């Protein structure tokens, strides 16, 4: 009986060891934690500006349009001889930071003449703290940073502001593919029926160039495979559409684009 016990134990441990070893020899990938914004009462302008710059240049996808000079006004460089955004927004009647904040949550409020209304509501992909961090960064581009923790707290309690906890951005309910492409500012970078800028591959004829599978991957994970000829724009497309769109909406867009021969 002793020998039987040993055999049973050996078989059990061998099976466990087999699976454990397999799991060790495959690639080891951790899911890193995105750096959290600590915007408590004592937050310094430097912290806000650094966080805002990271968002502006990275995850928020602002540089997809701002900086090209074709689809949105330049912010980091001069626009119409008025200087950078930090320099020129000081002349705004309501105050620089108030103007910038409102422009981000209600892009239609201060539309600059000559540019299409393609900017999405920033609350759909950024938390309230993140929006204020971007505002602070924009102020720092030639102006004085006036954003404080009080601004963040005050706007977070306003009825129209999104939840401050980083809750999922509100999704639009439409199922019209063209409206979805417009609302999500896709047409700002991809041409559809001649409209839009050629920052990314054109939607026209996309179905004849790549498969629906590839289109889907490209929307959810833009970095997975960069289209030939667009390497210079790698990293500009936000990787947030997988969260912004429902599965049904994503499929509608994928099928719409795949059908464009």
């Amino acid at each position, binding site marked *: *009986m002793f020998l*039987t016990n040993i*055999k*049973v134990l050996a*078989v*059990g*441990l061998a*099976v*466990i*060891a087999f*699976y*454990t070893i*397999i*799991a*060790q020899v*495959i*690639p*080891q*990938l*951790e*899911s*890193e*934690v*995105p750096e*959290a914004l600590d915007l408590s009462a004592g937050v310094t302008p430097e912290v806000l500006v650094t966080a805002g710059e990271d968002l502006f240049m990275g995850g928020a996808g602002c540089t997809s349009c701002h900086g090209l000079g074709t689809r949105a006004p330049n912010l980091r460089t001069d626009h119409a001889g008025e200087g950078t955004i930090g320099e020129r927004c000081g002349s705004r009647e309501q105050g620089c930071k108030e103007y910038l904040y409102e422009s981000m949550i209600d892009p239609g409020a201060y539309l600059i003449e000559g540019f299409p209304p393609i900017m999405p509501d920033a609350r759909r992909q950024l938390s309230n703290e993140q929006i204020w961090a971007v505002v602070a960064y924009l102020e720092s581009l030639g102006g004085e940073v006036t954003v404080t923790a009080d601004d963040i707290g005050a706007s977070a309690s306003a009825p129209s502001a999104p*939840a*401050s*906890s*980083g*809750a*999922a951005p*509100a999704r639009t309910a439409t199922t019209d593919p063209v409206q979805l492409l417009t609302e999500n500012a896709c047409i700002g970078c991809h041409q559809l029926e001649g409209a839009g800028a050629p920052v990314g591959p054109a939607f026209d004829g996309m179905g004849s160039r790549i*498969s*629906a*599978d590839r289109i*889907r*991957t490209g929307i*959810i*994970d833009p970095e*997975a*495979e960069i289209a030939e000829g667009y390497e210079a724009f790698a990293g500009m497309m936000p990787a947030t*559409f*997988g*969260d912004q*769109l*429902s*599965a*049904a909406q*994503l*499929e509608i867009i*994928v*099928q719409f684009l*795949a059908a464009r021969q």
Partner: protein
Amino acid sequence: MMIDFLTLLQAAAEAGRSYGDFPAVGGRGAVWIAAEVHLMFAAFVLGVPMFAVITELIGIVGKDERYDKLSKEFTRLLVFAYSATALWGGMLLFLLTTLYPAFWGHMADIFSMSMWIYAGLFFVESFTLYLYYYGWDRWKSGRAKWGHWGLGLLLNVWGTIVMFIANGWLTYMMSPPEGTTVAEGLPDGVTMWNAIANATWMPINIHRLIANAVFGGSIVAAYAAYRFLAAKTPEEKAHYDWMGYVGTFIAIATFVVLPFAGYWLGREMYEYSQQMGVTMMGGFMSWLWIVQAILIGVLFLAANYYLWTGMGRIPGAERFLPYTKWMLLVLIVCWIVWGTPNTMIASRDEFAAMGGSRHPFLGVLGLMSGKNTAVNFMILTTFLSFLMYRRGNRIPTVTWAKAGTLTQGAMFVLSSAYVLWLGIYGYFVPTITRISYSVYQVAAVLACIIGVWAIDIFLMRGSQSRGEIRWGEMPDRSQYAIFVLAVTFTWLMGLMGFARSGIRQHWHVWEVMRDTSDRAVTPALGYAANMISLTVVIFLGLVAFIFWLGGLAERAVSKKPAPIGQPQAVTGG
């Protein structure tokens, strides 16, 4: 008193500290172990009553005492396992309140009422179990027996409700109602019920119900396998051989439908959050599914090996044995296809060498078309093994026997051809169409299983026997296959637990409550595998102890002097 207790826990949670630490394994490790071992015991005590009640019913209707004895033996294991479940549940509760007080406070804010109901139901469930087990010999016949069976049914009802409530808490962590915040809890107009009945609640409920039956069956079969190896008499060997077969059969039969519940759960996750779905299937967890494929491949191989070995004790079944090597070949080829990665995270140099994110040749096998086809072939092959096992010692006597067998064969051929054709054609259609093919493939396989099975029932009515199954005449190695099944099912449960919990990444509650501790990083599979193995060793070690306790109690009963005029019992059970 219960309310006082929860208030105390709530107060601990609100003490202002967000995280505690635990020696050696850290706070997360401690909660991981307690939660997983508790879950494994919970699955056992929910799964075993399911077929205790089914086998008791078979015994009543078929007037076969063997099933009644089997059912009672299952239930005896439950009495001990319930204590272990409660102990680990208590351990988990205290670890959560001391190591994650802020998180616990948030959960208690939303779910306090359901927590009280949960605790109350656990009492009711325990008392029902005691009545069910200790009343077994008292309510043994006639209407009282049906009443006793009703208690077993009630035990399942309580257990299912308890599980559904706990599932509400954990699925809330994955898919909370929109607008929920840490500061204000549920938004206006959203009730606790809405938080429980969230997007992933029912898929998890169904998935766990089925998985519990699988798990319970495999653990009971392992118990029987051990008793078989330790048996001293042919009668004991025969009984435990048969018990091991019943347990394994239930585990495999229910396991076959588990992937369908998994698909549903995955779809709901995608529907709730694309990001979560992508993380699960294509992000840092993509390799997890390769490990899962390896485990499930082992399950199919071990189950088929057990059936093939079992044919050695069935007179006449040797005529099927030459086919088994081809079936083994099919299983291995399908296993390899299923284990082929699709796209994976690789370095730029590796991508350049492959010419893309997919391997130029093997990448084809990694697509869902190939994988789904492979899985369906493995299911069909396993069903064929079972059919051969079932028909081993029988000679049909109905006049339409030949036509019936040919029809069954045709159903196998047609469904296999259809599955293969869809698998190949799937490479030439858009993804959205290809996904729908997996449903047709599954439907074809299920139709084949149901159709062949239905025909077989009528075909074998009044059949002649080539000889009785020689229960107990099983080689010992077949019993080790049962151990492999039990260990693999347990490890698989730990792996899937990591997948479900890990996709939340650095969120306690998805996009509502962030994990701000220094252990918020979701670990890689290597670390996760170490934790899973540790929990499996703890669980199986405790189960072995419980089995040993059961044996002790049994020996004590069998040593009692028999009443005058009745023979002394040789063994219990």
